[in-house]
């Protein structure tokens, strides 16, 4: 797939918004890939964390929006704790989730969740999942 680069895209408002929500400066990432190397779910991700940041550096928000990456991130902080540049991929992924959730686009329906699980499972899992998946 070809990506057409332009200043407008690279410095778009959408990118600025992601930087604002996450508090991260995308430019600081120098694409070493350590985050993808250590992320426990990167094997399951359609786009690994460092590649996701790269797409955003190019201004390609659409390119990452449909990927499962943001919904798989566990918030385990492995990426951040080993990043040589102290960039938090976790925060950037949270920002991507927020772009959906703040528009009211939920990722999960509570009603569709497994009832026995809701009853037996630890509350913290529910609270945490709701905060990540539901607006």
């Amino acid at each position, binding site marked *: 797939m070809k990506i057409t680069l332009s200043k407008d895209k690279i410095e778009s408002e959408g990118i600025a918004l992601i930087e604002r929500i996450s508090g991260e400066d995308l430019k600081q990432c*120098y*694409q*070493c*890939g*350590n*985050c*993808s*190397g*250590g*992320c426990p779910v*990167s*094997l399951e991700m359609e*786009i*690994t*964390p*460092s*590649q996701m940041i*790269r797409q955003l550096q190019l201004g390609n928000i659409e390119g990452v929006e449909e990927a499962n990456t943001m919904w798989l991130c566990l918030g385990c902080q*492995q990426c951040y704790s*080993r*990043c*040589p*540049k*102290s960039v938090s991929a976790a925060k950037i992924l949270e920002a991507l989730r927020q772009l959906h959730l703040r528009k009211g686009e939920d990722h999960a329906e509570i009603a569709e969740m497994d009832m026995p699980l809701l009853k037996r499972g630890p509350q913290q899992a529910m609270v945490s999942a709701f905060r990540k998946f539901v607006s």
Partner: protein
Amino acid sequence: MPRIGVFVCQCGNNIESTVDTQKVADELKEMPGVAYTCSYKFMCSSPGQEMFKNAIKDNDLDGVIVSACSPHMHEKTFRKASEAAGLNPYKCEVANIREQCSWVHHDETKKVGTVKSLDLTRMMLERLKRNKPLKATSIPVTKKALVIGGGISGIQAALDIADGGVEVVLVEREPSIGGNMARLSETFPTMDCSQCILTPKMVEADLHENIKILTYAEVEKVDGYIGNFTITINKKAKYVDESTCTGCGECWEKCPFKADSEFELGLNKRKVIYTPFPQSVPNIPVIDAPKCPKIQKDKCGLCAKVCGPGSIDFTQKDEIVTEHVGAIIVATGFELMPNEHFGEYGYGKIKDVVSGLQFERLASSSGPTGGKIERPSDGKTPESIVFIQCAGSRDEAKGVSYCSKICCMYTAKHTMLYKHKVHEGKSYVFYMDIRAGGKRYEEFVRKAIEDDGAMYLRGRVSRVYEKNGKIMVQGVDTLSNGQQVEIEADMVVLATALISRKGADSFAQKLGIGYDKDKFYSEYHPKLKPVETVTAGIYLSGTCVGPMDIPESVSMGSAAASKALGLFSSDKMAREPITADVNKTTCNACWDCVTACPYTAIAKTEVKDREGNIVQMLAEVNVGLCQGCGVCVAACRSKSIDLAGYTDEQVYAAINAF
């Protein structure tokens, strides 16, 4: 009435774009005492200077102001030209209307810039009217150099100075000179054996009639100033008489006690009486006192029994020696970030995770394995080795923001050495960028990949752990979609960051030189004065300045040597006459100036009568030491000190003219 000339420079458009220089010249012309003014395109150009000299002569000027760039740039130029025109150089002053005026004001109507230039020039005029002609002084130069650090860079500097006919004292803290280069196996990009090219230089230094090598010694104190330093050196007790020891080796053969070898970086043992490596220079052993049972508990003493010439002396003490030198070259080198800093790579606890320097020892024919690549844990030949570049380098989270510059190259070298020694072996290299900017360097790296089959993976390693006797390396290859990759390796080599030596900062303070945030020593100017420091007479060489390879370290050694030889080329050195002077009639001996002076240039002196009775105490400035900083002037409460060229009278006149 003085006859002063004012030359206003346009500096092309640099000044002219915001300053009406003609107007400045015209208005100054009307001031009392001004005999000549002009505006000129480039005062510093040859025609500009010619015009300047002619104007002085033709108009019979007795003082000149050049309103132009910062005096840092061209004060010297114009003072020289003034002198050529028969004027005392200290009757020439430069008013800075560029850096402090035209460059900071962007008013295109030129109003602000012109007014300010006028002010600056008028102030200078009033000051200049009170300038006295001064005469440059000169101080004698001690023609002898001190080189601190006997790595390749320090050795090169010492050899060049010595070949130039000047005596050198080379101080090395280890028992042998050679530094880190002595540890290397073969060297990029030519792959010559490190020992083979280094040891001849070590021996040459040892035998050179102009070089005195003090090993196991450290500089304790530096006093004095350029041309006249006094150095206090502590020679640690070796417990061996250097004048009689023949280096036969009987003692270390027979010594029954062992300790970890510093030189082998923990990969091997040495005896308690030892030389760091076989080709040590000088080839004289030292006793590791804290580990020697004879010295600690009066047990053993075997070495003394076997020593033919009776050179062992258990009672030897540290010795303080003093040297007088005219110049100092600092070549104290580097160390590597310790393996223990890498939690994610096993904290230095996984035995087969080694540093690049440790790998050099494993690959070196004089190393602990005789040059066979063997794993430290069990001596097996590794079937695969993972090399991790930028380990700690470019890693702000670990406190190192810079690139260590040499590890891309030596890692490529390591893969070649491995391939040449273990034909079946497979090497993997994790890198972030390849920085191979030197002559034939890029070709060298390509050779590692194309001829020797090193698998280069672009990405960092997240973690290294042990599993079933293998070392698991989990990282990423960002060139294949950011895939996580895992390698089961037998050994891991970390290209650990090259860092400044522990204590580099306190040593710099001892010398009075600057250092940066990473504690590498600061050049006076990174481009134009790369071997000078802010302290005149102290020069820098090699990796104590920052990461560099052998060719660069050697070049810098030669460059520092040429600076020192330049200094030694005449018997005396000219000094600026801008020095402090104490008014004997008003000094009340409070000694505030003595405490204030950062160069210890002020002494307490006694004034005696004819019978020799002390009648008065006075502060007196040593003009050799005085740097003209003016701190004492500010400190003196009775206003008894004035700085030549910057007298209170001159300064107040300038201020009042504003």
